[in-house]
């Protein structure tokens, strides 16, 4: 259950997340036969909406509607990691999932070398092998944050809340007094 939190208001558009994403989980620049570096397309995007920058990245929903909408059986949920993944060789680029995702986290990318061929869907693959997605690790402003899972974040928040409640009602001092 990956949990990625996006706070676009903090984003200053440095693009490190996209770069880290393009490098891929190996964090290496792949080089082709002629020695020309060839990055893969990033799996998250920026856009300006009503004057505000926004990051589009997959939330890896528990009941993903993109998977329901996929007519080719290309999108699937990896039950081990809980992530929504793509069989890119099955994708026919029909835009059904693009139409469903309320986060705009799926895009059809046409290969640069052969623009005439069918595009296939690109989406966050959750950086298999890493504890946290690389975009969040590389984000310097905290616009992308990660927790090991959502439950952990909730439990941390609850602790903060409980501490706050006890402080504001003076319970800590009270209880401390009671128990010496």
């Amino acid at each position: 259950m990956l949990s990625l939190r996006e706070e676009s208001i903090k984003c200053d558009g440095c693009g490190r997340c996209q770069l880290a994403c393009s490098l891929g989980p190996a964090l290496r620049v792949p080089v082709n036969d002629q020695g020309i570096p060839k990055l893969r397309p990033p799996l998250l995007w920026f856009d300006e909406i009503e004057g505000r920058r926004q990051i589009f990245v997959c939330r890896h929903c528990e009941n993903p509607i993109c998977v329901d909408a996929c007519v080719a059986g290309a999108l699937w949920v990896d039950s081990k990691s809980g992530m929504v993944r793509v069989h890119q060789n099955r994708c026919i680029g029909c835009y059904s999932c693009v139409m469903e995702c309320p986060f705009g986290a799926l895009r059809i990318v046409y290969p640069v070398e052969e623009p005439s061929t069918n595009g296939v869907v690109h989406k966050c693959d959750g950086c298999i092998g890493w504890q946290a997605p690389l975009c969040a690790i590389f984000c310097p402003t905290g616009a992308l944050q990660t927790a090991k899972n959502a439950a952990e974040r909730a439990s941390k928040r609850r602790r903060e809340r409980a501490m706050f409640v006890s402080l504001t009602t003076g319970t800590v001092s009270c209880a401390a007094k009671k128990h010496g």
Partner: protein
Amino acid sequence: MSQKVVSANSQLCTGCKQCELFCSFEHEGIYSPRLARIRVVKFEEKCLSVPVTCAYCERPVCEEVCPVGAMKHDPATGAAQVLEDLCIGCKECVNVCPLGAVEIHPKKGTAMRCDQCKGDPACVKYCPAGALQYEPLAHTVRDKRRARVTAWSLD
């Protein structure tokens, strides 16, 4: 402000976690603290336990961020609910709630949040220490004021 809330008095809470068990039983039919909408946070070193649940915000952020409109509340009573048929389990609400009062159901993958058991909260009914109260917001405020004054008079 006739809106009723579940309010917790951490001074009376013994940390027995009965509220978690009964909440889970009321909503899911099994006794599993993991499925509870109320959680007891313990600070063992301070001999303190605080039950935490939804605060029934006036402008709930969880509802604002929900992309599919699955989080709803009744403005008259304040009682919240999650429309499980709509919820896609994107965890936005979990990430945004400042109280950690929303969790994801580990089996169904949908959001869980306190719905005040439609007006008769099980956690309050079964709290053996009387630490949980289901009362209008105004009463909670009054009680807090009194508690504050009592704490001062102890000093």
